[in-house]
């Protein structure tokens, strides 16, 4: 089956919590206009929160001690099979996702749910480091 990329949108935002709502707004606008996404409106929140939590992780950890950094976000829409891929790239510190402990459910743990949520909300989650930086590659199938 031939994989076909229909559209691609790229965003560069300062790595600051203040600007993460721009990513949500962009995804919301896509869900309003794209025919495939319009039919899968129920997935909007999952994608919005999954992408937001990954970006928050970049601000809080990859760029923890780095100022004036950017997050580079590439949103790709594919057909046959229909899916949305979001690549979130940073040039900060990398980390080993395997070393992140699972949250303590049922207690009153305050932090440490972000990565768990990303995995729960998206169909595919890959983290890797490359020459151009660290990538979160998040996929949602429709």
């Amino acid at each position, binding site marked *: 089956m031939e994989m076909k990329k229909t559209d691609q949108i790229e965003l560069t935002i300062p790595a600051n919590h*203040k600007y*993460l709502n721009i990513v949500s707004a962009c995804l919301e606008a896509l869900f309003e206009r794209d025919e495939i996404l319009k039919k899968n409106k129920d997935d909007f929140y999952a994608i919005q929160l999954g992408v937001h939590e990954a970006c*928050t992780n970049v*601000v809080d950890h990859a760029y923890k001690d780095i100022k004036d950094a950017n997050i580079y976000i590439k949103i790709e829409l594919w057909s046959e099979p229909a899916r949305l891929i979001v690549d979130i790239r940073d040039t900060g510190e990398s980390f080993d996702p395997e070393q992140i402990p699972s*949250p303590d459910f*049922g207690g009153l743990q*305050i*932090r440490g*749910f972000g990565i768990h*949520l990303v995995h729960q909300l998206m169909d595919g989650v890959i983290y890797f480091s490359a020459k151009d930086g660290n990538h979160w590659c998040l996929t949602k199938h429709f």
Partner: protein
Amino acid sequence: MNINSEKTTSDIMIIKLDDRVDTFSAPNLRAHFSKLLAQGRANFIVDLSDATFLDSAGLAALVKLLKDSREKGGNVKIILPENKSVRRIFSLTKFDRVFDIQLTVPMAVGAF
């Protein structure tokens, strides 16, 4: 995010949050909760019925409030919006089993 607080005659603080309760607005929210706790408040209703988005940082502020209020002998009850978006983060983190979730503010007041 806007924060609107009012006190009931039974000394319960009702805190209504709207729009995005997220990592950007969480510091303000934590400061607001700390101020109320320092004033001696221990029982809270957090009304999220008009919240459109809640992330793990916003949720963490609510969990901290629950911890602090319980240490003072109080409790936190939550009103969730009808849309399943904000409800989903509670279920994925299993905090829907930790918080007392109520349907309406009057029901939450009555549940204290």
